[in-house]
């Protein structure tokens, strides 16, 4: 059975102005649909990557998974427990201990006033666990020195800080780690170090990752399955080789075409047209139709369902 099972997940944010402005300026309430009817499963010991441009809802899904945000509709089940609706506190607690998160900015996600030792053991200490010698062991596991435990975060570089974040995420011995753009703030050579560390840890400890990123080459490198998001909707899901060799959704095709390629010198790109639409008033039907070269009448009227197509799942009327 899948470790994580996301079903028809929807998250709507109320972005209305305060009521007085609404009365005076005669504005209606405004709602932003960040995630709309997204379903996918994450297998145990695999890496599931979510890619998409800004505003595609990838971070919102990550936050819902770890329980930082409740879903508006739909469910997220981890080991068959729906965190948002489960009544049995003991079961919720058991599942919660299995999830950890790594954030994008290692400068903002470490408390500057805490020593590294206290930062790392916090997930265990908060639950009253025994933490003696734990920080030192974890620091060595992520390639830092045990002596670093007594230092403060400002004494480390960006890559080292991200290693501290990883050590903290490992402290409670989780099974699932949600990684929200874990290498986006890092330089390439440091990114390579962190990506290698993450895949080693996954193999050694049997971890499962939800890997959120906008960088297609990183995703291809690390993931076992990729979900492509556009305006809060999952438009395509496939194994990375399948996705990169034979993208089926026009949006995926556009994204792959637009990404800069290292081997193609002086490549002339026919740049993609248009921009991501306003998520407060998304286009009717398929959200991609205003920019899509294949769009026909049905695309403007009906939202496409996810369907299986040659080893992938794709939400497009026209793809074949």
């Amino acid at each position: 059975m899948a470790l994580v099972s996301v079903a028809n997940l929807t998250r709507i944010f109320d972005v209305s102005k305060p009521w007085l402005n609404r009365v005076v300026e005669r504005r209606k309430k405004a709602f932003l649909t960040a995630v709309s009817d997204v379903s996918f499963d994450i297998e145990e010991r695999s890496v599931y990557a979510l890619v998409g441009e800004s505003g595609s809802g990838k971070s919102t899904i990550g936050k819902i998974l770890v329980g930082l945000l409740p879903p508006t509709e739909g469910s997220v089940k981890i080991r068959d427990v729906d965190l948002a609706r489960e009544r049995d506190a003991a079961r919720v607690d058991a599942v919660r201990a299995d999830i950890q998160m790594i954030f994008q900015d290692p400068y903002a996600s470490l408390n500057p006033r805490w020593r590294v030792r206290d930062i790392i053991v916090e997930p265990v200490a908060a639950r009253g666990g025994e933490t003696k010698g734990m920080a030192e062991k974890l620091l060595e596991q992520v390639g830092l020195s045990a002596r670093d435990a007594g230092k403060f975060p400002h004494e480390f570089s960006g890559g080292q800080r991200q290693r501290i974040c990883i050590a903290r995420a490992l402290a409670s011995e989780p099974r699932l780690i949600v990684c929200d753009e874990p290498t986006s703030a890092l330089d390439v050579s440091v990114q390579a170090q962190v990506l290698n560390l993450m895949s080693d840890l996954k193999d050694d400890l049997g971890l499962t990752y939800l890997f959120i990123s906008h960088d297609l080459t990183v995703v291809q490198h690390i993931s076992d399955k990729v979900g492509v998001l556009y305006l809060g909707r999952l438009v395509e899901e496939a194994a990375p080789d399948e996705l990169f060799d034979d993208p089926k959704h026009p949006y995926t095709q556009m994204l792959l075409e637009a990404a800069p390629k290292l081997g193609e010198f002086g490549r002339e790109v026919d740049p993609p047209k248009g921009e991501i639409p306003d998520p407060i008033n998304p286009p009717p039907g398929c959200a991609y139709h205003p920019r899509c070269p294949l769009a026909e009448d049905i695309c403007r009227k009906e939202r496409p369902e996810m369907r299986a197509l040659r080893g992938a799942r794709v939400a497009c009327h026209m793809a074949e």
Partner: protein
Amino acid sequence: MSEAILSIRDLTVEIPTRHGILRPVDGISYDIGRGEVLGIVGESGAGKSMAGNAVIGLLSPPARIAKGEIHVGGTRIDHLKGDAMRRLRGKEIGMVFQDPLTSLNPLLRIGDQLTETILAHLDVSRSEAEKRAVAALDEVGIPGARERINSYPHEFSGGMRQRVVIALALCAEPSLIIADEPTTALDVSVQAQIIALLKSLCRERGTAVMLITHDMGVIAEAADRVAVMYAGKLAELGPVRDVLTTPRHPYTDGLMGSTPLASRGKARLHQIPGAMPRLDALPSGCAFHPRCPYAQDKCSVDPGPDLADGNGAACWFPLPHDAKVA
């Protein structure tokens, strides 16, 4: 290469501090020709932006140009002060920054910002300047330029804002544009639009471009030549195809190896051990030697050789070696 628009010789930027003098840029030399795009790559702290800021005269004190010469269109500019530099900046050299929101004044309509720039640098009437502002917006592909000219920066999306910044940089028809990470804050699809725009504008006008970025993919697609910087020095300089496919400096080689690539699939990424040294603790000799797999005794004593006639690698033992260490 035809005549050089920008010519930098032995440029050194120093920051005096309590603990001694730091050199974020240390003796770099290169030329950019008419219509040429020179990519400057390197990791954070390599001194790429500092070199760009030195050219356009935007070093914030106490940083200063300590040595070397900068020529733009044959005129020496590194010693210019205040007014003289201000006349040049915008007129001869345009600048595009990373974050389009902070490089536009949020309180002024974009039309006013454009006409202000045009009036400051070109001898034209206000109505002519306004006409040119509309034309500039048109040229960078902003739909409905005549109406959008009265909009404020916050009314534009990120990609459109970056187009406005490019229009601003281009409106006085400079001969050199310095683009400092122009697409780093943008999504891939918008990035492709902006890169294509920069390339076509330069081709049409023959503007020289200094493209500063950390993204090797962007460099490969947009640049003619590339300069790789490490710890304030040029590690390697050459035609983009040569440098990226057959790197001669071990640092460039490591950088390429650590970039995830479609063709490499899931193979383990190459790692450069360690991290870029801090400016106040630069190693002796070649700054890369503690991280270099090929370093020998000489490397820890002698700084790398000068780049021969502005090409090649600043390395005592440039690649390829006979016995390549993986």
